[in-house]
């Protein structure tokens, strides 16, 4: 392989890191970015393993300080650009990050949405109990937010005590 200037190398690794960042972002969007709020230990291990799996793709095993800095700079730049773009184009953000999903409406569980989002019965009941409710029938709304947390809006009080 021909010898290149440091600037050439840095630009190569800058571009590689940016590609990796974009691919990983797309990957998380495709494969259930939504579960961040309900992460279990397997998800955490998976995220750590992903970070390690792409390490060589970014640095190609090269340990020079300048190349490391180029990679870090690239990742931070991508993050900053995305933040700025999302601020100016909120529509793009909702497309990329997804929109909230309705899981319970007027006490009725919407099964198709639950299945599509990979929410378990137990996770739904846990969210209800954390809001002081016992069954889906007591909730007016149950929504899976884009950050993966489950919001619950109870029916009003007198209705609840009858339920």
């Amino acid at each position, binding site marked *: 392989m021909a010898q*290149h200037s440091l600037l*050439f190398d840095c*630009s*190569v690794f800058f571009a*590689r890191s940016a*590609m*990796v960042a974009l*691919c*990983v972002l797309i*990957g998380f969007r495709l*494969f*259930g970015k939504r*579960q961040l*709020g309900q992460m*279990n*230990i*397997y*998800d*955490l*291990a*998976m995220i*750590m*393993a*992903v970070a*390690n*799996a*792409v*390490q*060589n*793709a*970014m*640095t*190609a*095993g090269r340990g020079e300080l300048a190349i490391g800095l180029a990679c870090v700079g690239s990742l931070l730049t991508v993050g*900053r650009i995305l933040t700025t773009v*999302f*601020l100016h184009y909120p529509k793009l953000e909702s497309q990329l990050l997804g929109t909230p999903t309705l899981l319970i409406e007027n006490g009725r569980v919407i099964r198709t949405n*639950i*299945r599509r989002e*990979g929410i*378990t019965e*137990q996770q739904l009941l*846990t*969210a209800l*109990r*954390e809001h*002081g*409710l*016992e069954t889906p029938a*007591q909730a007016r709304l149950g929504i899976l937010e884009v*950050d*993966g*947390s*489950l*919001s*619950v809006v*109870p029916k009003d*009080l007198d209705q*609840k*005590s009858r339920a």
Partner: protein
Amino acid sequence: MLEDWLGQVFSYPGGDGLLIIAGKTAVIYLFLVAGLRLFGKRELGQMNIYDLVLIIVLANSVQNAMVGNDTTLAGGIVAAFTLLLLNRITTLAMARWSSMERYLVGQATLLSSEGKLLPENLKREGITPEQVMAALREHGLERLDQVRIAVLEVDGTISVVPYEATIHRSRRHYRALRLP
């Protein structure tokens, strides 16, 4: 020059290198899930800093087994997508088969029902009555007879459903602040 640059940026392993990386990564993922299941602690809420360190070191230790000394862009991305795909499949499978969820992440346990503690369940989960009372007080309740049910969730928190619903706690996840 430009061709050279592009070649170095969009590098990929030759032959069936990608398939090998995907296969090795899949084996690693299955091994990680099995290992973490044996490890015992199954939810983040129960983890302390040493568990976290262990997970980080674990992820580091499998790096070479996944991508080996492959230093191409495509190789790393294939490994990452394999992990994400398998994780998604696991999540969907847990949503579909509750027995699999019970086995991998455990089950919520009833601690108190209709104002009475359930001593057997408390004992099995290693929860003291005092801890249950602390959870009640966090919800602004004083006595057990104000509580319809108290449940130890799989993430290690105790949730409390009072007879009169006056308290609505949210899960404490907030979106990070945005840059201006």
